[in-house]
């Protein structure tokens, strides 16, 4: 796939003005995720109450793909239960690994399907999944 497809509008938009780039008041958990090989470094903050992700935000630095992925993830998980959030992460990994490809199946990922193209760019997979791994780790610690 072409480079211009990957860096399409959604990614560029999301990365240049990520609307979830902020600390979360009363966060119940805060976890750093790092890609040692590239230096991507995000801190994900969540406020989880009664099993629901009430609010999420992040700070840190990274490439367009990792930033967009984080932002798109937060769009998706706010208001979801911990279980649902974990399931979405699993679905996202499936998409990026190229294991889940059906449009219907991926529907639940919403705008995050914009990142499907990364499944053909093995060198950038790590960037795309960083936030989601951090999410799973954070929810695991929370539980």
């Amino acid at each position, binding site marked *: 796939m072409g*480079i211009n497809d990957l*860096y399409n509008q959604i990614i*560029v938009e999301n990365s240049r003005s990520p609307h979830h780039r902020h600390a979360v008041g009363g966060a119940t958990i805060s976890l750093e995720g790092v890609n040692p090989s590239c230096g*991507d470094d995000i801190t994900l903050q969540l406020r989880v109450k009664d099993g629901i992700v009430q609010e999420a935000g992040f700070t840190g630095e990274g490439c367009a793909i990792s930033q967009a992925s984080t932002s798109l993830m937060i769009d998706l998980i706010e208001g979801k239960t911990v279980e649902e959030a974990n399931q979405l992460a699993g679905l996202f990994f499936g998409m990026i690994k190229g294991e889940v490809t059906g449009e219907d199946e991926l529907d639940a990922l919403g705008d995050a399907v914009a990142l499907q193209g990364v499944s053909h760019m093995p060198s950038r997979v790590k960037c795309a999944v960083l936030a989601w791994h951090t999410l799973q780790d954070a929810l695991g610690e929370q539980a």
Partner: protein
Amino acid sequence: MKNLLNEFPLLAVPENGKRLVYLDNGATTQRPFAVLNAVEEYYKKNNANPHRGVYDLAMRATDAHEGARAVVAGFLNAEPDEIIFTQNTSEGLNLVAYSYGLEFLKAGDEIALSVAEHHSNLVPWQRVAKATGAKLVYLYPGADGRLTKEEISAKIGPNTKVVAVAQVSNVLGLAVPIAEIVRRAHEMGAVVVLDCAQSTPHMQVDVKALDVDFAAFSGHKLYAPMGVGALYGKKELLEKMPPFLSGGDMIASVHEQSTTYAPVPRKFEAGTRNVGGEVGLAAAIQWLTALGWDEIEAHEQALMQHALAGFAKLPYITVYGDAAPQGRYGVISFNVEGVHPHDVATILDADGVAVRAGHHCAQPLMEYLGINACCRASFAVYNTIADVDQLLESVQKVRGCMGFGDQ
């Protein structure tokens, strides 16, 4: 410089109709036929375990092994028994940290190193500091990326016992004032551990003239196969150091409860050596030096100048370290405003230009520069002006691709 690309199988053949513009030579170089053939010849004709057999083939393997050591010694202007074969620079530096650092340092001592050090010349010293109570003291380059005389005098003092420094930084590409550093270090009674990973491919390194105490480099950054490198150490230092890795071949005699060790350098070479790799390293050294250092430096300087001049015309490009080509060897690190270096590298890759993006195993330097990561174009003797032109052309597509309106 004559065109060398045809001597490099990986670079000679176009891929998807495009020749690869390989500019990640600071990470590892490609190998010429001269090296690949020498290794193959070794395995086809002379392969055996050296030092372990009295039969003729084993002697040929021993000759290959010791012959390669002599070539490496000549390359650095050292004596053969001051050359220890390692798997890479990192192992050489760890050897010094373990066998010299852990043995001879104590609480209150200082280890001076540049903030630009590669992790391989930094993390081992952190561990030595932690284990011995010694203190890590950092030298910081000025705004132009160069270490000043003042900084050297300020940070290398009477408590300094080890100065660990890269001759050429793998991010800034700038040579440190090594004569100055050695003079000061020796005045203060410290030993100098020189990381030559990025200097040996680009300049003649004479350990005697430099008077450094240890020097480490990797073959794979020098057109040789992976898995082989060398550590130089002054003989009197090597002799008083305890062994590091122990096992076969590095002993004089072993009893159930005690062991005596072989003389240097074998004391430091445990287990079966990578003789095939050593033969490749010797071939690489011979291939490279046959080109002539003057020619090599002139050619690489021309590449540097052309790239730096091109970058200087692009206002959204920041080059790290003094952008003058003097004293710059093989490396240009840069960022494109508003675009993360990984995205830059991905976009360049789509054009067949391979550069590296990330922290380049120099996170403290990244912190010091106030960045998380950067791109690095690093050059080898086979790169051409056309390669640089392609880099410059592709770099100019980056911001457009990322939705910036200035393209």
